[in-house]
């Protein structure tokens, strides 16, 4: 069991999100891809996909998420000591996107910046990395961005991917000395011989069967690992935020764990699977409302990798 809260713990204090207003309708594609409305609504769970403007870059979306954060909780950029961006879709090959975000925001000079090239489990990885760094190096303020605009890499004629992904960005403000979610523990893994299940050289390809199989096999085990290590049961968790891979995958994991559906929401019908942003998009409202004491995040996908984070609300 991890050490409990001290007065100076690092807490996730607020989240800003950005969903582009542009939408692409999946219902308009039923004939093209030979799928039904029922499939889109009840299986895939995506009716519309959020699509950014063509000229918008990953760093632009991150800035829009930051504007949303300022509406939640004003952040003093001169105090920020760490800017991390989770993305597999950088603005350019060099430099990394966090440097561009740092410049565009006008963050102070004494600030560590880096990208994390993860995927659907990226938020859980990055939250853990940033929290650990802040604790080890005594940082007080950090910004953690996620942004994976897959509209740049999806082949619009590929049935496996064209109906699934949406564009979005998020930013999480991590700091000491204020109320929020504290990271208590986390669990990670990467399946051997599996990296080809989701890959992109020019366009994205996905082996849906392999992704589904790994997800429903590994995510429940990872969640149980975290709970067991912390002497908790599923009933001790108020909210499970699972990566929104598809409606069926979320439902399958929820039923495998035998947790009530309302504790494991699915909410991407109107914008799609936003990869590294899917969990922070769901976490914004509970954090704002301070509704849930214990929250368990579970991300899974590209790699094939997974990560689960146990959070506890602290004042």
């Amino acid at each position, binding site marked *: 069991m991890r050490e409990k809260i001290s007065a100076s713990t690092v807490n996730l204090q607020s989240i800003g999100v950005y969903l582009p207003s542009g939408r692409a309708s999946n219902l308009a594609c039923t004939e093209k891809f030979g799928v039904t409305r029922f*499939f889109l609504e009840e299986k895939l769970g995506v009716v519309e996909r959020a699509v950014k403007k063509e000229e918008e870059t990953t760093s632009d979306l991150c800035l829009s998420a930051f504007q949303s954060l300022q509406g939640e909780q004003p952040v003093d950029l001169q105090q920020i000591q760490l800017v991390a961006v989770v993305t597999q879709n950088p603005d350019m090959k060099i430099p990394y996107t966090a440097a561009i975000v740092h410049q565009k925001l006008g963050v102070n000079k004494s600030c560590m910046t880096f990208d994390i090239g993860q995927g659907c489990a990226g938020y859980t990885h990055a939250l853990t990395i940033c929290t650990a760094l802040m604790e080890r190096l005594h940082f007080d303020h950090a910004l953690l961005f996620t942004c994976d605009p897959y509209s740049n890499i999806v082949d619009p004629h590929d049935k496996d991917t064209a109906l699934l992904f949406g564009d979005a960005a998020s930013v999480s403000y991590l700091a000491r000395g204020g109320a929020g979610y504290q990271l208590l523990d986390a669990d990670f893994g990467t399946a051997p011989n599996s990296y080809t299940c989701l890959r992109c050289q020019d366009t994205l390809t996905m*082996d*849906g*069967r392999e992704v*589904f199989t790994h997800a429903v096999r590994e995510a429940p085990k990872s969640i149980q690992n975290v709970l067991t290590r912390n002497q908790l049961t599923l009933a001790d968790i108020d909210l499970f935020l699972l990566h929104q891979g598809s409606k*069926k995958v979320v439902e*399958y994991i929820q039923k*495998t764990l035998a947790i009530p559906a309302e504790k494991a929401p699915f909410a991407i019908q109107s914008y799609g699977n936003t990869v590294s942003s899917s969990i922070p998009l769901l976490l914004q409202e509970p954090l704002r409302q301070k509704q849930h004491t214990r929250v368990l995040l579970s991300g899974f996908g590209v790699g094939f990798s997974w990560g689960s984070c146990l959070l506890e609300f602290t004042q």
Partner: protein
Amino acid sequence: MKTVEDILALTNDTFKLPANLQHDQSLREQGLDSLDVIMLLHEIEVNFDVQIPQEQTRQLRSLQDIVNFLNTSVSSDR
């Protein structure tokens, strides 16, 4: 020996097969979509302790195809 009934019995809280499936007819032609087939193959792997190679999946069109695969797979493992 596995039978079609063994596969139909896989229906549970997380996975349901439609009623009245024809044994020899393609599952896709009987209304199962790509996700249904993915879930069915997953249930078979978990419940019958077999691995279905990716290249094999295109040949598993009907319930009978799956039964044949399972029985061949079991006998070749022995």
